[in-house]
């Protein structure tokens, strides 16, 4: 095999590995993450990319909360859910990169 063929094959391998990682990243972004709020208050849903998409609240539990307390609870839950989704995405991509040998 001459130098040009070796280079061509290497480029094809890199291309395929990059596409595989990109596909993994895209699949992860389409997997939402849902976390329960403390005290059966409801749920927080974030996209696979770590962005808030939905907040559902249970009316029967809300009477226990003041506006400030609910604000704090939701803030921490959203931050936590987004962080978890971002970490999951990063871990999945890192695993895909390691599998392809691009690292």
């Amino acid at each position: 095999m001459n130098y040009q063929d070796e280079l061509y094959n290497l480029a094809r391998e890199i291309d395929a590995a990059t596409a595989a990682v990109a596909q993994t990243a895209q699949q992860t972004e389409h997997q939402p993450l849902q976390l329960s709020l403390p005290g059966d208050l409801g749920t927080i849903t974030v996209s696979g990319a770590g962005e808030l998409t939905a907040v559902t609240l249970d009316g029967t539990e809300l009477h226990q909360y003041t506006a400030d307390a609910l604000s704090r609870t939701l803030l921490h839950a959203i931050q936590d859910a987004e962080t978890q989704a971002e970490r999951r995405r990063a871990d999945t991509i890192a695993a895909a990169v390691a599998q392809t040998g691009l690292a």
Partner: protein
Amino acid sequence: MVFNADVMRRQADELDAELEQARFTGQSRDGAVTALVSGHGRLIDLRISAAVMRGAHPQAMGPHVVEAVSAARRAAAGPALAKMRAVLDKDQVWQPQPAGARPDQPAPAADYPPPAMSTAAQQRPREEVVEENFDELDFLTDDDSDDRGRW
């Protein structure tokens, strides 16, 4: 024109720090929920109006929370994108925020405009920019016939 990776890296670090300090707010359409985010879009604070809790259906505020957070992130995205382009596009010049500015205060998008140079650059005639789009170039198949035989 010389590409200086060190300068770009330094500017990117400065921009990163500036965006971390910048603050943007967003509200739900009814004004009941207010969200505060950093220039990166990281959620920093969330305020729910006490009036909502006294309303008939406080459980219906979930979508309003999403609305407020999304609005704040949209407000942050515009200036952040313009500044990132200014750093990454070598034809533009990015300047950090003046020392007298108060980045810890909530700043609406209108108070945090993109650099003047980026606007000027966008208004340049198209033909002045002679750059190749590497996204559209397939290095394996788009072979330049003039270069045949150089291997």
